């Protein structure tokens, strides 16, 4: 029997341990046994992938972009969550703000999340640019909490929302996952409203280097895709990881982030 595949993941919440122990148990009965290693940030995880310490990295979209850049494309994505294929950034403001679109942010203050968060910092600036708003048009209120985890904790996005409530900002850019977590407009009536929603883009994926043998990868991916929401053994893991179904990667969904990283000259390491 071949040695287990080692999957790397970033420990952004204690639940990560529960999730990956559940995943390891799920894969334990073959044919693609796995174990996992947790990292404190995505830079260390990508380093470990490139050094061969881990076989598979559970990467954010920014970690994927950086892996592609550092390997000159000699890597590939294996799978992602169904929710990763329809990720979006929501621009929110206080209810009744009368903001009707990105162009209305001219002269306003926009709270952004961690500088390495694709959904709450990098892509929002990209979308502003597409709307014709440059660095001098919008005052960016950056909230760099938990840098290194690419916004996974959501903390910087919650702080961005608090900044709006505290009137330190006129609007905030947050991921759809945070918008869902706070119950959209429904649980804080009169607090927030969405005034612009981005096109969909992709978020996380399982990344491997191009050299990993196909006969090791394929059984692992097949087993992963076979996880079933309707199976009571599988569902708790899927719920905690925030998906209903693992799906094949949709690489087109990373185009906007590749572009944003290039435009903003974001380091390929941190």
């Amino acid at each position, binding site marked *: 029997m071949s040695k287990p595949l080692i999957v790397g993941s970033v420990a952004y919440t204690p639940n990560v341990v529960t999730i990956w122990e559940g995943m390891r148990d799920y894969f334990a009965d073959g044919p693609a046994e796995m174990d996992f290693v947790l990292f404190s940030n995505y830079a260390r995880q990508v380093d470990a992938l490139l050094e061969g310490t881990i076989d598979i990295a559970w990467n954010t979209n920014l970690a994927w972009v950086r892996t592609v850049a550092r390997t000159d494309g000699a890597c590939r994505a294996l799978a992602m969550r169904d929710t990763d294929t329809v990720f979006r950034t929501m621009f929110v403001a206080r209810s009744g703000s009368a903001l009707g679109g990105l162009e209305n942010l001219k002269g306003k203050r926009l709270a952004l999340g961690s500088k390495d968060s694709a959904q709450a910092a990098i892509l929002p600036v990209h979308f502003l640019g597409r709307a014709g708003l440059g660095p001098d048009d919008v005052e960016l209120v950056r909230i760099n909490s938990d840098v290194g985890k690419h916004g996974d904790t959501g903390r910087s996005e919650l702080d961005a929302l608090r900044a709006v409530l505290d009137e330190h900002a006129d609007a905030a850019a947050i991921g759809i996952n945070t918008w869902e977590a706070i*119950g959209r407009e429904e649980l804080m009536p009169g607090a927030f409203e969405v005034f612009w929603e981005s096109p969909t883009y992709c978020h996380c994926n399982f990344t491997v280097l191009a050299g990993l043998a196909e006969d090791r990868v394929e059984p692992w991916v097949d087993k992963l895709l076979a996880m079933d929401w309707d199976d009571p053994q599988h569902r708790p893991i899927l719920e905690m990881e925030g998906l209903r179904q693992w799906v094949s990667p949709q690489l087109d969904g990373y185009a906007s982030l590749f572009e944003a990283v290039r435009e903003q000259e974001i380091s390929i390491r941190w």
Partner: protein
Amino acid sequence: MVNQRWVLDLVERVGAVAQGATVTVPLGDGDPGQLVQNVGAWCARTGNELVEVRENVATVRRGRSPDPLAELAPDQVPGTRLWMYTNFDCNLACDYCCARSSPQAPRRALGIDRIRRLAGEAADAGVIELLLTGGEPFLLPDIDDLVAACTAVLPTTLLTNGMLFRGRRLEALRRMDRTRLALQISLDSATPDLHDQHRGRGSWSRAVAGIRTAHAEGFRVRVAATLPPEQTHQLEPFHTFLDSLGIAREDQVIRALAHRGVAEHGLELTIESLIPEVTITADGVYWHPVSADHPDQLVTHDLFPLHAAITEVRRRFTEHRARATAAAQWFPCA
């Protein structure tokens, strides 16, 4: 003043703890009922569990508690088996009887009408097996009718001391449905000493004779021994004896003596430590057959509708387990 940020605080704090851990979040001033509703709504949409709101502070558990019922073996789920105490009087006065039965005990019979109705409702409520116990059921002149009311609906087990299979009672036994009824006869030892010490002189011989009679009449016979916990490790001679009587190993049941009824010693069994087995007596619905004469384990005086009693037992069991889980969470260290 209403704290509009409680949602943000909840998201942040719940996200920072492990599955099953709890967090508290002040909700500010406001109508307590509305606050419970709001936090409950957040928990419902995010897959977390509202533990309580007290003095406008919400306690929320990350994730949902596992369903205690789902963790039980299928035949342990409360309401899968239904126990009925047909009566409380007995021809014996065992010194450890959990039901305080004896020749002097009032009969407190459940009666044919209630047993027939309970059996009918049991099948509809998801019960898959009925168990009749006492007292000594064969003291009842209509025991064959009671059994027939049960076996007509579900597989049934009748608990007896096996000592009365003579005359009209033997005739009653012969009228029972062998394909749907098992007899469970009490016998505590391979030799008379221990059994007779607790149950009365000569009772061992008559019980063994009863086992042979029931077998000869074509009934499946289980033998159940009640032993002090310290004696449950010396079982092999007893099993060998039961083998010689033709009792299948899976029908040889060893129960530890419970400190209930007239027993002076034995296992302490409480609602918190017992997986319930819904038990009906003439006086009400009880948590478990071992405590059917004890007010501390009375669930309700209302026997009907049966499904309501079963639902209530399950609810209380789930509540007890949740409380135990929470206690383990709050006091994790020795």
